[in-house]
């Protein structure tokens, strides 16, 4: 019997997967090149500073939506929102806040404002973009400094402990988040209210009413960020904050997160398509811009492959997960992102009553670790097979934590004993974090102690996933990603190119006039 510190995986096959994924990415590049979306244009506006809102239907309605509406009505949007903002600032001879005020007060319509010579406008637009970009860089540096000053737990080289808060009320969330951090959590995820991803605007202000989560708003981000910064300062341990960057406002959320100092964002190239029935083109275009923003802001993206195993059997769907990981990686590379920012997602979602389930889960986790060696992998606990037996649930989570430690995952999304019942109570998180503290401390160094048998069950299991992934990617390459999605290659879900929400928010750009200098500033490879 021979053992080694790694599972035997064919380097050639891994390289083959990467190269197919790159070519799948190239096809999507054309789409992105030729089109933009309402979401992307709103994100541009937000980058420029248009983050105010007007009262509408008892909700605060963002000015960026309003502006894109004005431009789209008169067909001006195909030149890019930036162009017309630059034009307006020049005609009105005012700055962004003043312009925003005028728009909010209904004194100005971007769609009908007189047009200045395009050369001048382009030049001014470039300057505006550069200023905004510089601002982002300043935010990033400021954040880096805070992280360093407070002490970054990442440096310990151990999995970060990630927990969610989801009371629906940002003020309760703050209590719960601070408590979790004090108990030992490293990353706080504020879960969004059910179906926020389907809203075609970002709600505004601090909010106290959500279903199964709390609205992602700039004000909520700021409130939570401040609370965690204060705690981090006191405890001498930096606490990361994350939220969801999916849905119809993907890239806008990225902007707000960058401004408010979030550290990570749940962001996936296909999640919205598959799980939220968002138009595929809309999603693919938006994800690119959102990743450009994350990339330059030092924000980790956390991909959503864990979700695939919720609608398929995890034992069988390993190839899909892996294929998607390669695709997510390729798309992130297109956005100029560093591998160390790619928190590639996967999960422990097999039925705990399967024979050898612990072997299969370990093999899968280790395989993922080896294939994405630089990524701060995001490893998600078992959720689907959780039942109301909170004790059993805790046992499953304990094994999850151990596998996470053994296979050196970057971040472990801690399981909650009450996963099958309610969004976590304060004590659920306490129980969960105490368990994880025990495992991470007690198994320190375990990954250096044990070797994998080279001809064992685990080695074969992992090799099979890789083999199947090569096949799957080859099939996808042949028919194209969009066709593959239609044919249920991922998560057993079918979506068509024209279907889904937000399709009308995609528009072809006028390649001669359209400007979005952020692409270049942010290092887009597209």
């Amino acid at each position: 019997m021979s053992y080694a510190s790694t599972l035997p995986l064919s380097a050639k096959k891994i390289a083959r997967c990467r190269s197919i994924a790159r070519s799948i990415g190239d096809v999507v590049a054309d789409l992105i090149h030729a089109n933009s979306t309402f979401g992307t244009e709103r994100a541009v506006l937000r980058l420029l500073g248009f983050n105010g809102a007007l009262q509408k239907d008892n909700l605060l309605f963002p000015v960026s939506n309003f502006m894109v509406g004005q431009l789209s009505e008169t067909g001006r949007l195909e030149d890019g929102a930036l162009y017309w903002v630059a034009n307006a600032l020049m005609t009105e001879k005012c700055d962004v806040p003043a312009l925003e005020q005028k728009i909010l007060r209904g004194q100005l319509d971007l769609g009908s404002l007189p047009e200045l010579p395009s050369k001048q406008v382009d030049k001014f637009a470039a300057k505006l973009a550069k200023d905004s970009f510089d601002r982002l860089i300043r935010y990033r540096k400021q954040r880096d400094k805070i992280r360093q000053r407070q002490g970054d737990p990442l440096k310990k080289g151990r999995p970060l402990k990630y927990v969610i808060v989801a009371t629906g009320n940002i003020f309760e969330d703050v209590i719960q988040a601070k408590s979790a951090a004090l108990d030992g959590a490293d990353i706080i995820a504020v879960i969004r209210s059910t179906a926020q991803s389907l809203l075609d605007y970002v709600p505004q202000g601090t909010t106290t009413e959500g279903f199964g989560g709390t609205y992602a708003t700039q004000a909520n981000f700021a409130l939570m960020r401040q609370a965690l910064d204060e705690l981090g300062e006191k405890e001498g341990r930096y606490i990361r904050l994350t939220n969801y960057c999916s849905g119809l406002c993907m890239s806008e959320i990225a902007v707000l997160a960058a401004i408010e100092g979030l550290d990570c964002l749940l962001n996936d190239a296909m999640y919205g398509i598959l799980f939220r029935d968002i138009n595929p083109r809309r999603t693919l275009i938006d994800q690119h811009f959102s990743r450009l923003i994350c990339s330059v802001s030092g924000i980790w993206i956390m991909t959503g492959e864990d979700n695939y195993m919720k609608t398929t059997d995890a034992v069988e769907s390993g190839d899909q997960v892996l294929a998607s990981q390669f695709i997510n990686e390729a798309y992130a590379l297109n956005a100029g992102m560093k591998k160390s920012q790619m928190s590639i997602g996967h999960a422990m979602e097999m039925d705990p009553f399967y024979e050898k389930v612990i072997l299969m889960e370990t093999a899968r986790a280790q395989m993922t670790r080896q294939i994405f060696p630089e990524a701060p992998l995001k490893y998600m606990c078992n959720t689907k097979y959780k039942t109301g037996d909170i004790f059993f649930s805790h046992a499953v989570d304990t094994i999850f934590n151990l596998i996470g430690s053994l296979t050196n995952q970057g971040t472990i999304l801690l399981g909650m004993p009450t996963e099958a019942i309610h969004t976590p109570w304060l004590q659920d998180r306490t129980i969960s974090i105490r368990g994880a503290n025990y495992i991470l401390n007690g198994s320190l160094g375990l990954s250096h102690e044990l070797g994998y048998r080279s001809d064992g069950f685990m080695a074969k299991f992992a090799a099979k996933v890789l083999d199947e992934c090569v096949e799957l990617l080859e099939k996808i390459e042949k028919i194209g990603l969009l066709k593959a999605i239609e044919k249920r290659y991922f998560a057993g879900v079918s979506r068509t190119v024209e279907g889904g929400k937000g399709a009308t928010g995609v528009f072809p750009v006028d390649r001669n006039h359209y400007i979005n200098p952020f692409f270049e500033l942010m290092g887009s490879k597209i």
Partner: protein
Amino acid sequence: MPKPVAQPDLKNLRPYGDTTNDGAVQFSFTLPVEPGPKAREAATQLVRKWGFFDVKIAHMSSAGVGYSFIVCFGRTELGVDFTQIVVPELSNEKRTYKEIDSLIAKEIKRPVKVVGACTGYDAHTVGLDAILNMKGFDGDIGLERYKNFRCVNMGSQVPTDELIDRAVKEKADAILLSKIVTQKDIHITDMQELIGKLKARGLSDRFILVAGGPRITHAMALELGFDAGFTIGTRPSDVANFIYETLRDRAKKKKG
């Protein structure tokens, strides 16, 4: 010779720890005060106030910012009369898909049509898919694979009106509603919405109405106006059998 153990008191059914009728219960909760002797005393008094005796605070530790996590044990004499409990139960008949298929062929004499959806903002399709999709659940094949079922699975986030429109259009025998998210009782609201809209459209008795989800009970579904409610662990054949039996019984009633 010592007497054998006492029998469980069904007239005053209480929990059981290690001595029959001991009324032993485990609790855990969090108090919004710092741990310490005062919090311990508060926890003890609290559990006593809830009607328990032999209260043991087994664990108290600091949880987060100024909270105490408490595990405790207590006993009670407050039970319920088990002999008086009546709950509507679903037919106990367990039939295989083949049996159901051939019974439908023989007795209903046409394929049965069902339309299923997760309404409102609920995006949890796994439960409904488990009932409808070919693959089924727990080794029991889904309705789509029955010879005599025609299924439409509308998926998630379906507005109630669209579900009704589709059921009408398909001339469905049954509507299958899945509700997983229960926060703020949204599942009940959405179930009521279906009943209300059917009524408003004069379709109250048109379809067999079946609801399902982890927090749904048969009794509660009946109360809201559904014909059945299915919960955790439901297998597709349970649902198929219920629909078959209901159609059969309704046909009989019409005749009789």
